[in-house]
Structures are given as structure tokens and as C-alpha cells.
């Protein structure tokens, strides 16, 4: 049985076969929580420390050490679970997941098993392109600890273990197998990432490892109600990798099923370079984790008051914010999406819009000039030297006709560089628009004289030539003429 088919050319699977089957996907997402200290000990969680320096008896698994749970882990986990509309269990139990691996110091991971913190939630995400919004049910959210890191290429013939990461708190978010396509999986993940960012529970950065995704995928004939055998996909390092891997694995399964063969349950790794899946192990290994309740930790009790407190202090969530932007600012769906993609950008937009009360213009400006400036500098909005009030002031100048749109962009570029204010820059650079009719008339006469054919044709009725003539005036004025006024004066002069 070959597993090297790619999504593009699955051997033995024709489009008909793919079309006869339905993809069924469930996703397991591990998210590192933003706490100062680890889940069960007071070691720091900061990144980049020299190996095995953020360690102590507890996270090293030394004999006699005991775990003590960090309260902030519970708060962040609650925040996520409540935002995902889960049922929060006032009493939940920690459990040991037992297995041997060098990056697992105790020989077991402290996790939660049959009595997790939260169950039965859901996440609604906008469909891709014009597809309708999809709701994916969340099976559970639970708390667990991370393992250390192993590095295999640093020393010849051996593996190197760093336990700085061992004990960092995670939540695991498991979805029901409600996802029906690779694109839907991508949409779910993007919505989940956005939600968790809004909640400030995690950096959710797949490249840095604070967000990890495993996928379970199976295929079944369209219309069937029972689930097919699922395989587990790992080593998915980006959302696009998730989508490509799902398509590849689905195609592989369809090919098997169409040929009358069976899909065997196994763990597969996504090989991004080859664009294919491959088996995780050279031989099958039984996973008997022998879960039992963690005797070192009494039950976790979260009372109603605490749950209520977390719920009441949730920040405005992406979906609610998007709706508000569409209603309060009359923004279209696309604009609202862009501005709610991350919370700080939305905050910035709102602040500008409060000061310059033309939300559409503000939206365009933030989506356009501001984002371009951020991208060029590779910075986030929290580092941007141009304050919302300053942007508002700039837009006020444009609205008041003091600056043309083009001039405003030049001014903004300087603002982004120096942090100076718009009026100051405009005056110094001589970018203030010229609206003095006398000066404008002079230029207009010159242009009419120099471009007689166009002027005549316009006067005779070719209205679309007005823009061209305005352009000539703008050029004469080196961009400083107020194009709206020029437009008006030209039209009058040549007989609108």
C-alpha cells in the first residue's frame, strides 16, 4: 500500500471516486497559555533561555517533587472555554497519561481525562469566500502540561533534551468531526486563532509552537451516517499545511475505498517537502496510556462566582465586533472582516473613527495606508508611531480641502517616519492645497491653451475628457491644486 499519492494526482483515484465520498475531519488543537510561570511549578515560561535553566525539582521530575496548580492557568482556560460557549464543569479532575519519552520527565503527563474542565461548546466561522458561516461543535477543552523539547541534529548519534518547556501550561481544544473540507478546516483554525488572540490567552503562533494542530480524517460514502476509519495527521506546521494534508490524505483514503480496500487506523506525518503523508512509525506501537486520576492534585473546583466573573470580563469577541462595525459604522462585510482580523487594529480604527467621523474614509485609510506602513516596517500596530488622533487630524485636513488625497499620502509617509503631526509637515513641505481661484484660473487658462483639441472636444460634449484636463492642471501645479475645485472651475469655464 503506497502512501505517496499527492493531492494533485492520487494514484488510482479519479475525481469520480473523490466525489462519491465525503471528508470528515475533527481537529485537536493545543494552545500554550500566556502565564508567567509554568502550570505546576513556579519556573518562568519565557522563551529563549539557555537549555535546562528554567527548571526545578517539579518540572525535572525529581523524586519527591509535587505539582501545585497555577491559578492563572485556570482563568485563561475558563476564558477560552466560555468564549467557545462550552459547558463549564464546576468540578474537574486531573489525570495522569502514562508513557515513556525522554522529554516527559515524570514518565507521565498531567492532563485531564474523563472529567475535563469544559465540554459541549461551539465555534462559528465565516465560510471561505461566499460560503455560509459554519458552526463546528467543540467536544472539550481541558488543561494539561507541555513536554520538553528534543533536538536530534545537534550532537551526532544522540538526542538532546531541554526541559525548559516541560510543564508550560496548555489547553487542548478538541472539535467534533463536523468539518467537511480542507477549506472549512482552515476557516475553523483561523477563527479559533482569532478568538484566542482576542482573549489574550495565548500567542497562538504556529511557527513558535504556541499553537499546534493534529487532524483526524476519515472518508465515507456521501449520504452515509456512520464514520469511516480515521487516521491521525501530525507534523502540520501551518494552516495551509493542514489544508493540503487533509486533501492529500482524503484522496489517499478515497483511492483505497474505491478499490474495495480498507483504511487502516494509523498515525501519519505530513511531509511538506514531498507534499505527501508518511507513516509515523516503522512499527506499530500500542498506546495504552493507563489514565487514572492524579492523586497529587485534589479536584479543581471553579465556583459560579468565578465563572460569572470571567464571563463578564470577556473582551468583545470577533463576531460581535464585526456585527457592531457593520451596524454602527455602516461598513461592508469585507471591510469589517479586515478591521476585526486582530483586536489592536480594530481598536485603532475605532479611535480614529471617533475623532474623524467618516467611518468609510477611516476604514479605507486604516486598511490601506496604515496597514501598508505596518507591513513595510514589519511591525505591529502597538509599535506604530502615528497615533489615532494624528490620523484623524490628517483626514480632517483632507476633508477640509487643505490637503489633496495624494498630498495626504505623502504627509502620512513622513508622519510614519518621524511621528510628527500632519499640519506641521504639510506647511513645511509646502503640500497645502492651492484653492486660490485666481491661481487656479491661471493654470486652467494655460492648460486650455496648451491642450486645445481636448478642451474643444470637452466643450463639445465629451464629458469624460474633464478628468484628463484636470490632470493637466494638477501636473502644472505639481500636484498642489485642489482637484475638486479645478474640476468645478474647468467645468464652468468650458461650459458644463
Amino acid at each position, binding site marked *: 500500500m503506497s502512501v505517496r499519492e499527492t493531492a494533485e494526482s492520487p494514484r488510482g483515484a479519479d475525481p469520480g471516486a473523490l466525489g462519491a465520498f465525503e471528508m470528515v475531519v475533527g481537529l485537536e488543537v493545543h494552545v500554550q497559555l500566556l*502565564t*508567567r*510561570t509554568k502550570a505546576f*511549578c*513556579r*519556573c*518562568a515560561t519565557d522563551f529563549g533561555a*539557555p*537549555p*535546562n535553566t*528554567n*527548571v*526545578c*525539582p*517539579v518540572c*525535572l521530575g525529581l523524586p519527591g517533587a509535587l505539582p*501545585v496548580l*497555577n*491559578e*492563572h*492557568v485556570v482563568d485563561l482556560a475558563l476564558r477560552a472555554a466560555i468564549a467557545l460557549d462550552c459547558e463549564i464543569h464546576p*468540578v474537574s*479532575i486531573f489525570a495522569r497519561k502514562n*508513557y*515513556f*519519552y*525522554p522529554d*516527559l520527565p515524570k514518565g507521565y*503527563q498531567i492532563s485531564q481525562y*474523563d*472529567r475535563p474542565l469544559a465540554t459541549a461548546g461551539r465555534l462559528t466561522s465565516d465560510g471561505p469566500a461566499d460560503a455560509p458561516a459554519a458552526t463546528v461543535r467543540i467536544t472539550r477543552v481541558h488543561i494539561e502540561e507541555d*513536554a520538553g*523539547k*528534543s*533536538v*536530534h541534529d*545537534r*550532537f551526532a*548519534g*544522540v*538526542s*538532546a*533534551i*531541554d*526541559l525548559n518547556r516541560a510543564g508550560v501550561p496548555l489547553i487542548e481544544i478538541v472539535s467534533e468531526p463536523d468539518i467537511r473540507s480542507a477549506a472549512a478546516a482552515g476557516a475553523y483554525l483561523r477563527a479559533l486563532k482569532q478568538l484566542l488572540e482576542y482573549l489574550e490567552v495565548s500567542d497562538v503562533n504556529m511557527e513558535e509552537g504556541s499553537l499546534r494542530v493534529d487532524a483526524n480524517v476519515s472518508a465515507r460514502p456521501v449520504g452515509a451516517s456512520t464514520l469511516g476509519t480515521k487516521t491521525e495527521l*501530525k507534523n502540520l506546521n501551518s494552516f495551509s499545511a493542514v489544508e493540503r494534508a487533509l486533501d492529500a490524505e482524503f484522496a489517499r483514503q478515497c483511492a483505497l475505498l474505491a478499490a474495495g480496500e480498507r483504511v487502516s487506523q494509523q498515525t501519519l*506525518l505530513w511531509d511538506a517537502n514531498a507534499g505527501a503523508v508518511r*507513516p*509515523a*512509525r*516503522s512499527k506499530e506501537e*500500542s*498506546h*495504552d496510556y493507563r489514565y487514572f*486520576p492524579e492523586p497529587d*492534585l*485534589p*479536584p*479543581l*473546583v471553579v465556583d459560579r462566582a468565578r465563572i460569572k466573573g470571567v464571563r463578564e470580563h470577556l473582551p468583545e469577541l470577533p463576531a460581535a465586533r464585526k456585527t457592531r462595525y457593520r451596524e454602527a459604522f455602516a461598513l461592508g462585510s469585507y471591510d469589517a472582516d479586515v478591521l476585526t482580523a486582530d483586536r489592536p487594529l480594530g481598536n485603532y480604527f475605532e479611535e480614529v473613527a471617533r475623532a474623524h467621523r467618516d467611518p468609510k474614509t477611516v476604514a479605507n485609510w486604516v486598511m490601506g495606508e496604515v496597514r501598508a506602513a505596518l507591513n513595510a516596517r514589519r511591525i505591529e500596530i502597538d509599535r506604530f508611531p502615528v497615533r489615532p488622533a494624528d490620523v484623524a487630524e490628517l483626514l480632517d485636513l483632507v476633508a477640509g480641502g487643505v490637503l489633496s488625497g495624494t498630498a495626504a499620502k505623502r504627509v502620512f509617509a513622513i508622519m510614519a517616519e518621524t511621528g510628527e503631526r500632519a499640519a506641521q509637515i504639510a506647511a513645511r513641505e509646502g503640500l497645502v492645497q492651492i484653492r486660490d481661484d485666481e491661481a487656479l484660473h491661471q493654470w486652467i487658462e494655460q492648460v486650455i491653451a496648451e491642450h486645445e483639441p481636448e478642451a474643444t472636444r470637452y466643450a463639445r460634449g465629451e464629458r469624460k475628457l474633464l478628468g484628463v484636463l484636470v490632470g493637466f492642471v494638477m501636473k502644472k501645479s505639481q500636484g498642489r491644486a485642489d482637484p475638486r475645485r479645478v474640476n468645478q472651475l474647468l467645468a464652468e469655464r468650458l461650459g458644463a
Partner: protein
Amino acid sequence: MSISLDEVRHIATLARLGISDERAQLAAEELSSILAHMQVLSRVDDERGAGSTGDSPIGMTLRHDAGPPIPLLRAPAFFAPEMSEGFFLVPRLATHEDPEQSP
């Protein structure tokens, strides 16, 4: 309930105990004999729900998200069987597992 040699081998593998076949055979007999005494438990009914911990309303006491960490009187280098450049060293994994994933 008796344990077979195969079962002993299986659990020895789960527990990474590496016992010889001879030892495993002996263990199978010993464990079977011990487990025979456990049969009395089968009469216990599960009424109150397995694993019920007598949920106290108080639950566990949590700690603040703050340091300082528990100090180590000696750094890992002092007690590590093999260490280099601050890393614990172990034999290279023999299987095709991805290093970042759990087994």
C-alpha cells in the same frame, strides 16, 4: 484471573522493565496467585460511581502565577548521567517519530 506469559511480556514492555523470559514466567505465576486473592472485590458494586472523589466544595488550593522558582541546590549537570552544552543526552530515537510530537 490468571495472567499469561504474553500478558506479562506486554506489561513489562509498557513499563519498560526488560525482564527475561524466565523472570516473566515466574512473574506470571506470582501475579496470578496474587490476583486470585483479589476476586473478593468482584462482589463490590459500583453504585456510587467509579472514581468519585467525594467532591468537596473546596477543591484544591491554587497558587499565584509568580516566582521565584524552587531553587536547585545543585544544577542538573551535577546529577545528570550525561549532559552536554546544557542538554540531557539520550540515545538517538530508533523510530521515525517526529521529534516534536509525543509518541
